[in-house]
């Protein structure tokens, strides 16, 4: 009988191969063999996603592989999610640095490659991503964030003439009294840390890998804030 490491390797390989059917089968097999769901997540799925992310950064993998990996992760997560929830409940809700993200390219802008890469990388890192696509009115972004109880809103604009709509989003959150509820990440070729700060967003990142790190930091900060307020 295969040992735990073998099951985890199968999961990891399926993710690296971007094979959604194989990742679902491998995840199910691992669970049936009583492998810890957290180990499957971290040492199988995330470990595979890390490899894909590194290969993407080094120019060995390209966007299709990233998208296929995102798909494979989604298939595996659908199987493992209920078990993870049980596991997190057992741990007292000490969930990893992931959360729910609503992403969109803002109203009037239809450029989505950067946003798609970030969405794929976030998914690959265990975030639950609701990608609303392109040219999305800010009211819809906020409404979706409320509906899915998001931790984070990520919005993007490549066009300098669409960037003002990201400021509108932050302003509207403030006006609605919802600013503290959601962390806001902004991105796009012309978006700088200065711009992010100026419009009152919580941050921006230069690339997808850094965007994931930023999202993780923001989620941690949010959980700490909540922890403090609860105490």
């Amino acid at each position, binding site marked *: 009988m295969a040992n735990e490491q073998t099951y985890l390797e199968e999961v990891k390989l399926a993710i690296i191969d971007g094979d959604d059917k194989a990742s679902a089968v491998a995840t199910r097999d691992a669970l049936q063999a009583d492998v810890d769901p957290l180990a499957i997540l971290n040492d199988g799925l995330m470990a595979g996603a890390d490899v894909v992310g590194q290969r993407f*950064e080094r*120019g060995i993998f*390209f*966007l*299709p592989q990233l*998208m*296929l990996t995102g*798909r494979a992760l989604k298939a595996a997560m659908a199987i493992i999610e209920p078990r993870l929830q049980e596991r997190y409940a057992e741990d007292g809700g000490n969930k990893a640095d992931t959360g729910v993200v609503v992403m969109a390219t803002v*109203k*009037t*802008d*239809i450029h989505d*490659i950067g946003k798609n890469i970030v969405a794929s990388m976030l998914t690959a890192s265990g975030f639950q991503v609701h990608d609303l*696509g392109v040219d999305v009115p800010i009211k819809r972004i906020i409404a979706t964030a409320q509906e899915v109880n998001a931790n984070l809103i990520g919005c993007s604009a490549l*066009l*300098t*003439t*669409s960037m*003002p*709509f990201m400021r509108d989003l932050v302003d509207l959150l403030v006006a609605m009294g919802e600013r503290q509820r959601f962390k806001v990440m902004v991105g796009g*070729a*012309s978006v700088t840390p200065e711009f992010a700060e100026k419009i009152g967003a919580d941050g921006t990142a*230069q*690339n997808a890998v850094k965007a994931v790190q930023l999202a993780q930091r923001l989620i941690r900060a949010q959980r700490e804030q909540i922890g403090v307020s609860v105490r």
Partner: protein
Amino acid sequence: MILSYLDIIDRANNGPYISEDNWDLEKVAMTTMKIVEKYDLAWNPEEIVTDDPGLADTIFDAGLELAQTLGAYSRSTERIIEFEPGELELGMRLMPQTLVMGEGKDARTLYARRIMDERLPLVWAGNPGAPHPEELFVPAVLSWAQEPIVDMITCGTLVEVDGREVRTEDPIEIISTRRELQYLRQILRQVGRPGMGMLAAQSSVSELGDLATAHPDYLRPCDAHLVPMLNELKMDNRNVARAVNSLEYGMRNASLPCVIVGGLGGDAPGSAVVNVASFIISNLTCLSDYHLCHPIHMLHVATTTRSVLWVENIVQQAFARNAPCIIVSDIYPKSGACTRELLYETAANAIVITVSGGHLEGCGSADGNAPNGTGLEARLMGEVGHAVARQGVSLQEANALVLTLLEKYEHVFEMPNGNPGARIDQAYELQTMRPVPQWEQMYKEVKTELREMGLVTLT
């Protein structure tokens, strides 16, 4: 028979439905992957300028197969715009071989260039897409419009007018685009070349500006405007409207598929295949009078990375050998004004474009992401292109030159904040419109280096 543009619109409204996600992954990415495998396509990062006619022909065949297999996608209607092979072939046969830009004594004729063509490439100066505050717009364009080597001009984007920010789909786009055209016409008069051709209406992302400037006082019928395709092989109604706007008025349509190298097409060979397919499709969807070749790098954006240079090279050669047409290729270096690397990047890119069959457009310095472009690098772009054509640089010689230049600038892609250099008002004395001494000195030194490398006819 050739399609009426209304037929294209009909097909966009009534073609087979597919979600955009499935178009991207199942259609574009997967089909390209299969075609790359079928034709066994590969590239060599040490051979940026290829001397392999068979490879150019295979890339063309692969691109044609992709176009025939997929067609285009309407993002507005989520329908596939399908084409018969005969329609695509007729579209290619009807691609203009010459195209007059501008009017009167300032008019220039674009033509379909050949590989290693000894006729001079035309020099189209400017940095489309680069955001400019209003006070820097005129100095920037003036800096290249005043250069005698420049044949046509283009420009960046006005991001504010009268202190108000320009927002997409806002009525202010009409004002900003008309303001842009007023400035451009004023600049052409100022440099004594009022008939020079332009590629303009860059200050409006939506179709508003395009519609608002289709008038002889603004964008003349002898000028060009962009009719972009979206990544990858997609149109939307904004861009369909731009094509429609030219129908009776007669502006020159520049198709612009900015294929992402490392994107849905995968590595360089797949991206080249997607670029070929995009040009073939755009003959019908964009009513192309000429094609703008502007692949961009997935991570680095610039056109001066090895893989993007290779794609520009092979796509131009593919068309020059199999379906000659007018291709103008963009130079968007990573570096900005007052950096030596900008000049190396510009020279390398100009060599690749000229020797493999394109005309020159640029420079979108600093990734076209800042008002950090000047007339000086546009001058160098033209001078290098002319030297390459004049002295009959071979494909192999061009490759050796480019590899030498890559060694001098490739480190910029590792710089955490890029290499944006200086703004136009820091790079030029605005009173005299001359480059500041250190920028001019850098230019002279790099030209000396280029001559020593073998570009002996560089004037």
